């Protein structure tokens, strides 16, 4: 106790050092704030402010320039009855389901079979190979697929022509019954390099003891994957699920460049409808309301996922 007071007096004696700054003089107390200020300022200016503005203006009729007119929940009730938005939400739901199923299977399967290779160098080589498409701009990939789907000059219809199915040649992106599925196929065979790395890390993190125990029990090959490894990469699968849901809900570049939502509203998605309303129709308030709904959906999905994650963390798979 006496020692403590002595120490305290020494601290005060050396010019007002406090517990806060690890014994730094008062002029430096402000230093951490000065270090953080630029980051926080730019976040507030270019993230929080526009986000708050979007939520606020979703209750207004606004063209982005003149004085906004308060309409209460008007934008939201209009959205509920808007046939364009209904088509958009149905389409994006289909896209989300498709993308999530792909993201939880294909990269995981490829990650698993790459680990079957004996040479570590070749394992790494394949991983690098599948990561390359990630550094190619998505827009270039989309434009190439526009070429692949071109009804007269595109390779897909050229193949059909060559094998004598010339009469079948579809308008891939122009047929309302086909266009959405054609958009889903962009990026085939869907070996997403990012997912591949995530799953690889997950699979490599499984302890050798667990795998040896499985081997002793005679579980090899597919049975080992299904009963031993799969339950241990559920976390990675969930991560990929959430990232893909959030990504798919927001991404409308595919649609904008390949079909512009058409034919009709066959490939309309909420992001594109937001873009149209804001930049073509000058309905900024309505666009903000669409953005707000998408934000709430993503927030809800993240929340549900966090609850799931917590539930699975409480459950200890090692005890059974």
């Amino acid at each position, binding site marked *: 106790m006496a020692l403590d007071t002595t120490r305290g007096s020494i601290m005060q004696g050396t010019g007002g050092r406090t517990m*806060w*700054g690890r014994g730094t003089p008062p002029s*430096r*107390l402000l*230093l*951490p704030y000065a*270090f*953080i200020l*630029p*980051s926080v300022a*730019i*976040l507030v*200016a*270019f993230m*929080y402010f*526009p*986000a708050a503005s979007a939520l606020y203006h979703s209750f207004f009729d606004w063209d*982005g320039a003149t004085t906004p007119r308060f309409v209460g929940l008007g934008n939201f009730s209009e959205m509920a009855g808007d046939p364009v938005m209904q088509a958009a939400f149905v389409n994006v739901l289909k896209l989300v389901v498709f993308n999530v199923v792909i993201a939880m299977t294909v990269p995981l399967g490829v990650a698993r*079979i790459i680990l*079957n*290779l004996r040479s570590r160098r070749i394992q790494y080589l394949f*991983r*690098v190979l599948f*990561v*390359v*498409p*990630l*550094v*190619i*701009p*998505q*827009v*270039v*990939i989309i*434009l*190439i697929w526009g*070429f*692949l789907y*071109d009804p007269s*000059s595109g390779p897909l219809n*050229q193949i059909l022509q060559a094998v004598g199915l010339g009469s079948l040649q579809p308008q891939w992106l122009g047929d309302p019954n086909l266009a959405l599925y054609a958009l889903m196929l962009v990026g*085939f*065979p869907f*070996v997403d390099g*990012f997912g591949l790395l*995530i799953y690889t*890390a997950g699979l490599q993190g499984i302890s050798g003891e667990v795998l040896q125990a499985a081997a002793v029990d005679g579980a090899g090959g597919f049975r080992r994957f299904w009963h031993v490894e799969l339950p241990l990469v559920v976390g990675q699968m969930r*991560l990929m699920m*959430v*990232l893909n849901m959030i990504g798919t*809900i*927001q991404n409308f*570049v595919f649609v904008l460049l390949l079909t512009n939502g058409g034919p009709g509203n066959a490939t309309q998605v909420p992001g594109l409808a937001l873009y149209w309303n*804001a*930049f073509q129709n000058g309905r*900024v308030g309505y666009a*903000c309301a669409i*953005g707000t709904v*998408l*934000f709430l959906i993503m927030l809800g999905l993240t929340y549900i996922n966090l609850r799931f994650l917590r539930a699975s963390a409480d459950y200890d798979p090692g005890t059974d």
Partner: protein
Amino acid sequence: MARRLRRGLGESSTYLLLIVLAVLTFLPLLLMAEVGFKDNNQFFTNFWLPSAPYHLDNFTAAWGEIAPYLWNSIIVSGGSMVGVCVLSSFAGYAFARFRFPGKEALYYVVLAVMMVPSILILVPLLVEVKTLNLLDTRWALILPYVAAGQTLAIFIMRSFFAGLPEEMFEAARLDGAGEIRALFSIALPLVKPAVSTVAIMQLLSTWNDYVWPFVAIHSEDLRTLVTGIVEFQARHFINWGPLMAGYTLAALPLVILFLFTVRYFMEGLMAGALKV
């Protein structure tokens, strides 16, 4: 013996499957590069295979149009990269190595940005940028990119700085080094891998962005590579050879950079997983 044979067979079928997947993945890109060497006549008469003469002029012509876009992308992505690295180094250092009132709250302010989706802020941000008279300038891209890249960058820098041993800083302090010197001459050199991860994540996310530069930039001479290539497509529509030559050139810069920095890219991508 039988087991070994089976394993060998298993491995060769694994190879076969992986090679088929790789070929399918890269086929559209190979076709793109191959068509880039053709004129329209060659394109329509000999669709699938390369045929002489090889039109390198497609690439030289496309380069003339694409080089200015590339330059703009380098300035914008490079500028935002420097901004993110500098700001996140300071902020990450403060969060990792200082104790001060409000630290937790401020860190939450930084982390909570993860909940703000880009689609939500797209329109109001454009209105804001217009109000600030930044529309159609490079700042309209750089500033929001720096903001959007902050969170992950601070998260990564903070965890690396926090992992450095305290004794090193004590020693520096005894030698009379100030916090700013400690940051620049002790801490930063030790977390170079974190800085390159942050830089690569920022480069990748800004370089490939389409929607924001598409709405925020209207001048032809300020267009980034990705928005420029869409303009390029409109100019050369169905003139397949020159078009594909342009696509190829637009795809190449980051691929080349990737080949020289594979390790950092792979690690940077893994760090991206921390985002959620």
